[in-house]
């Protein structure tokens, strides 16, 4: 009896340790931990022209502090825009309704995240609210295309010396927009 008790105790603590390790792996090393056991939260949406390679689970930050995460990304086929659903911590519930959301890149080639900048309104964002002011992701290829277009254009200008600078500018501006569509 004595022996079987210590034996069962050993088995029990081994199994407990194993399941504790599994629990640690599923909650502490993945982004799932926040959505399952996270603090109270509310959800808002924002529409972007282009989200680049923003992924579900990307952080949402304000002044560099993480206040939530991206939980869903969908495509609105009526407006041809990306609809991003953000889950924000209930603690940060004083975000003005006219705040704007932009997509930034972590580091030079890092992942994308959403940065919120506070507006000046007296009313605050609630659950199921919508952010109206958004700024699309900075797409490296478009920028390179823009620079190249400017570069070749200005060379052509030097040679012909006929085109006006305003012309060059509008050409360079329209080019990336065509690409994104």
């Amino acid at each position, binding site marked *: 009896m004595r022996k079987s008790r210590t034996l069962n105790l050993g088995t029990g603590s*081994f*199994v407990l340790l194993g399941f504790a*390790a599994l629990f640690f*792996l599923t909650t*502490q090393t*993945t982004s799932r931990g926040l959505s399952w056991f996270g603090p109270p939260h509310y959800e808002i949406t924002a529409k972007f022209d282009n989200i680049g390679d923003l992924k579900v689970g990307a952080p949402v930050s304000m002044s560099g502090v993480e206040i939530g995460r991206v939980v869903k990304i969908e495509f609105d086929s009526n407006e041809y825009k990306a609809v991003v659903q953000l889950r924000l911590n209930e603690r940060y519930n004083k975000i003005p309704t006219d705040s704007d959301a932009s997509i930034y890149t972590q580091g030079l080639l890092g992942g994308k995240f959403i940065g919120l900048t506070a507006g000046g309104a007296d009313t605050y964002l609630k659950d199921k609210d919508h952010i109206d002011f958004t700024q699309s992701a900075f797409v490296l290829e478009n920028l390179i295309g823009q620079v190249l277009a400017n570069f070749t254009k200005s060379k052509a200008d030097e040679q012909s010396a006929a085109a006006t600078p305003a012309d060059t500018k509008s050409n360079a501006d329209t080019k990336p927009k065509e690409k994104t569509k």
Partner: protein
Amino acid sequence: MFKELWESFTDALEGLGSVVHFLFRLLVNTPQSLLRFSLISQQIFNSGAFSLVIIMLSGLFVGMVLGLQGFQLLQRFGSEEALGTAATIGLVKELGPVVTALLFAGRAGTALASELGLMRATDQISAMEMMAVDPIQRVVVPRFLGGVISMPLLAAIFSVIGIYGAQLVGVQIMGVDSGSFWSQMRAAVGLSDITEGIVKSIVFGVACSLIAVYQGYYATPTAEGVGRATTRTVVTSAVVILFLDYLITAAFL
């Protein structure tokens, strides 16, 4: 020459067939064995809890090596913060299940095979049959199930200790920022990575335990036969684990 090749081929096929047949016999007897859970619990203790020390020590050192190597490599690209991601994905998906299974085959598999082989050699199994006790149900299935249950738990423990080993070297010694170590890991590691590791460790657990139990049960009842069964357990397990590892990795891609 061709006749010999053909014969060795049919021998291998016959061996595979009898392993599959043995697995079915084990599975058929599993429900009755589950009723006597104390036997299984004892085997979980034997193959699981006794392997804990070697698993934890190996996990710590594998994690520390990963931390050191990963740091050296990532430093060249100026992205030491990705160390947590690299170490975790490497441990959870590959090193955790595979190294644990290899150690498990060496620590618990050989113990199972030699124990069963010795039971066969000293006629204990025949004695049970004469007393109308089914040796498969009484002796083999609890050992098999004990191994199957222990393996995933051991692999998870290995991975967790390994992650802390990598953290020890990366953060405490090499000075990677602790916050970005964990947050980049959380952002990059998905639940599917963990699932892949768990599936692998369960499959390896079944394979390791089955091979050990089969080799022991059908060992030649001599001292030499038991020794050979033990050796064969380790060799076959190692090859089968690495082969299955490739298959499962390809399936999850």
